[in-house]
């Protein structure tokens, strides 16, 4: 008996939906084994990690706070990936957006006006777009791989932020701690109720809805889908590939920048050396887990949000579990989702030993 992978006669109808569930299941099983190897009760550990975070209102609010940036970035990336454009530098675009948006409260601390917050948001979007425009330009003009350029620019943005908060933008009254001034009330996003959930979550929902309509109903969505799937046919249809390239980078960069400014003008409230626990990279997993579909991205964002919360909870409640556990789970999830996607076009089958004798060995003929 041996197991073989054989091509399906046609694309599976169910696997695109089953694959994410299967991947989540496999991640939990392997995660449980890892916990058991650390000497923990796997069921209890998984409960603490994945169930407890959604049992109290407090933690559900926290989940929404974590999910909003993941979804905002994830939908932008999903559209890039759909068009076969591999922007993996969303973390850098998020950072650039946060820096650009935070420039207003830091450089003009005394300017109190209802214009401040909208302007901060616009600057945040513009910052993300500017950062995303660099790989788009290099791709368009020189054919440079956007995978490399966008990824490398992440580190440039992170060091730029680090230098700013330790140098010119450091809070003069902050006892030399590396962070900017704390933003004032008019420089912060309004919160919903009295909790930590801020307007960014509503913006994310609105963006998901808009992009879902765009992708499924409009000519622009068609252009993006066909440009990734069949570039030559797309050119024959009269769509320009550079235009799609720029559109996708600007959209994803703008959304990542928006997520960045929403973080610093929301739950963080100032610039500091680290403003994101890797949202820009995790959003890549969100995009794939969400089947590159805006609504799917929303659900996947919630799933990955739980992995962040669970990571924090597990550190506190379980002994010997590091804060890197969340990354391990996220990595496993991406690994399994890509592996399970093979089953959309292929299927597994056992080959019995009975017929194996009639199968010729290599070189016999």
């Amino acid at each position, binding site marked *: 008996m041996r197991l*073989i992978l*054989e*091509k399906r*006669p*046609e*694309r599976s109808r169910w696997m695109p939906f089953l694959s994410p569930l299967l991947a989540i299941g496999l991640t939990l099983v392997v995660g449980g084994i890892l916990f058991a190897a650390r000497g923990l009760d796997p069921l209890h550990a998984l409960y603490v990690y994945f169930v407890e975070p959604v049992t109290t209102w407090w933690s559900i609010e926290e989940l929404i706070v974590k999910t909003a940036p993941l979804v905002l970035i994830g939908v932008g990336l999903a559209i890039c990936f759909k068009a076969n454009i591999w922007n993996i530098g969303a973390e850098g675009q998020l950072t650039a957006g946060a820096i650009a948006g935070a420039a207003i409260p830091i450089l003009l601390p005394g300017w109190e006006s209802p214009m401040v917050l909208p302007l901060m948001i616009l600057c945040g979007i513009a910052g993300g777009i500017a950062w995303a425009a660099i790989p788009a330009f290099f791709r368009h003009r020189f054919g440079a791989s956007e995978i490399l350029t966008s990824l490398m620019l992440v580190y440039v943005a992170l060091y730029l932020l680090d230098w700013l908060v330790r140098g010119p933008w450091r809070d003069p009254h902050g006892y030399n701690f590396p962070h900017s001034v704390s933003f004032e009330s008019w420089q912060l996003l309004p919160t919903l109720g009295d909790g930590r959930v801020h307007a960014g979550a509503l913006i994310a929902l609105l963006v998901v809805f808009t992009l879902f309509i765009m992708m499924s*109903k*409009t*000519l*622009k969505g*068609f252009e993006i*889908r*066909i440009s990734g*799937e*069949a570039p*030559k*046919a*797309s*050119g*024959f*249809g*009269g769509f*320009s590939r550079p235009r799609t390239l720029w559109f996708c980078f600007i959209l994803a960069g703008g959304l990542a920048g928006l997520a960045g400014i929403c973080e610093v003008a929301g739950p963080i409230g100032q610039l500091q050396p680290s403003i994101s626990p890797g949202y820009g990279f995790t959003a890549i997993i969100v995009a794939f887990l969400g089947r590159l579909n805006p609504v799917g991205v929303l659900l996947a964002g919630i799933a990955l949000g739980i992995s962040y919360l669970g990571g924090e909870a597990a550190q506190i409640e379980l002994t010997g579990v590091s804060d890197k556990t969340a990354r391990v789970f996220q990595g496993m999830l991406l690994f399994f989702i890509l592996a399970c996607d093979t089953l959309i076009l292929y299927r597994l089958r056992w*080959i019995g030993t009975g*017929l194996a004798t*009639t*199968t*010729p*060995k*290599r*070189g*016999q*003929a």
Partner: protein
Amino acid sequence: MISDDSDSQASNSTPKPSPEPGLESAPPAADGEAPPDYLLEANGITKTFGDFTANDDVSLRLRKGEIHALLGENGAGKSTLVKIIYGSLQPDAGSLHWRGKQVRVPSPAVARDLGIGMVFQHFSLFDALTVVENIALVMTGRFDPESLSGRIEQVSAQYGLSLDPFARVADLSVGERQRIEIVRCLLQSPSLLIMDEPTSVLTPQEADRLFITLRQLAAGGCAVLYISHRLEEVKALCHRATVLRHGQVVAQVDARRETAASLARLMVGSDVHRITGGTGSPLEETMIAVRDLDLPANGPFGISLHRISLAVRAGEVVAIAGVAGNGQSELFEALSGERLVKHNEAIALAGTDCGIDGISARRRLGAAFVPEERLGHSAAPTFTLAENMLLTRHGCDSEMVARGGFVDQRYAQRISERVMQRFDVRSGGHLNPPAGALSGGNLQKFVIGRELDRQPKAIVINQPTWGVDAGAAALIRQALIDMARAGAAVLAISQDLDEIFAIADKVAVISRGELSALLPIGDVDRERIGLLMAGEHETRPFDAPGTIDKTNDVNDMKKGSERDAAHP
């Protein structure tokens, strides 16, 4: 078993497989003599996809050294049957015997180990790699391009398939790519070679050369399973023929004793439509005009276009003949606007200069285009027919896209269904299947119907019936003629001389990026076209890119015309 065992095969219906295959490799004699040793036997093969039965109790027997035709219209089940033999599909019922022993072929790798090679109609080559690298990828053993290139040169010389092992695939023509696939199979010294519509991309001369290769192989004992719609060549080349219709074997005949018409009747189940049209009387207005068009080569092995001039008037069909890879795709892209040209006045469609305008602007002038490659260029395979309708109509049909960029999906679906009905596009009952699910002929009818449905003033079409069955080809050719008679200008780029003589009013020949003068079809014969294909009209010196071996082509051309004269 076979539905027509009462046919000439009756006496052979109980095969006696012997463990030692016979040594005589000459083409088999007429049927009904001593029971032959079958190389391959397929018995009662049945395969269903959902509720569609692609193969229904199909049986097929091949002898050593036999060239066996597998005939049938698109969708008759030919591809399914050969995919089962080649191991890329598994049958639901039935068995395969190889050299008398029952075998299971779970994968193409196993088929290759058995000694079965296949040349697909759609090639599986990596564009970015060279010929030798592509071949090395499927060879077992050490990766050794050096010695492999020597073997490639040896095999290609032996079988007259000229091929540069270090050329990059992206820069090769369809005809040259096919040679890679054939050489790739031959390097593994197969006992059975399956060819899926091999001549659909070749000129008569190239096809003749291929036939010599195939006869040489058969004489050496290799069996050839030859899938084709071209009945004349089946008659000329093949020993026996198995005819499929609607997934069933309807006849197994001695191909040499049939006529093209009798084969066509078996295949279609009724008489094939004959094209009618007569000569056109063109109107005054020039609809497609090319003036001194120069276009630099795209890539190191691309063809540059040099001083191309051409005028197609409303009401006439003009054909451009030529060997694959002589600038046809470049000319098509320049005409369609997928590649823009430097001088706006170099190209005019419907009386308006448009050399620097994109394809959508040219469509709005009333022009329509159908490229050579169906999957991936004319149509996106995973997109539905209605979405593919949107692909070429969004810019020129104001009802397709409403204000705000919203697509009217119901309208697109309605037009798509209208085209399917008008052009007899068969999709197994699905109203809106993905384009990739249609057979080649049906998809071609769809992409041509999509353009004709707009009633264009001018249509440019590259290889109108490439790899399309007789029934669909007749329908497409008739539609193009009717279009011209209704007052449109039709420019057909084709390698199929039969097609050109059937539809064209005038013909020009393209060779190494240069176009001959337009000649009335009544003034030329195959030999004249052959000389032009070999570059008689060219002005540029030989060392320009894209040089082909002219002397050979001219000689072959003469042989071809002699053959035509002998068998009119």
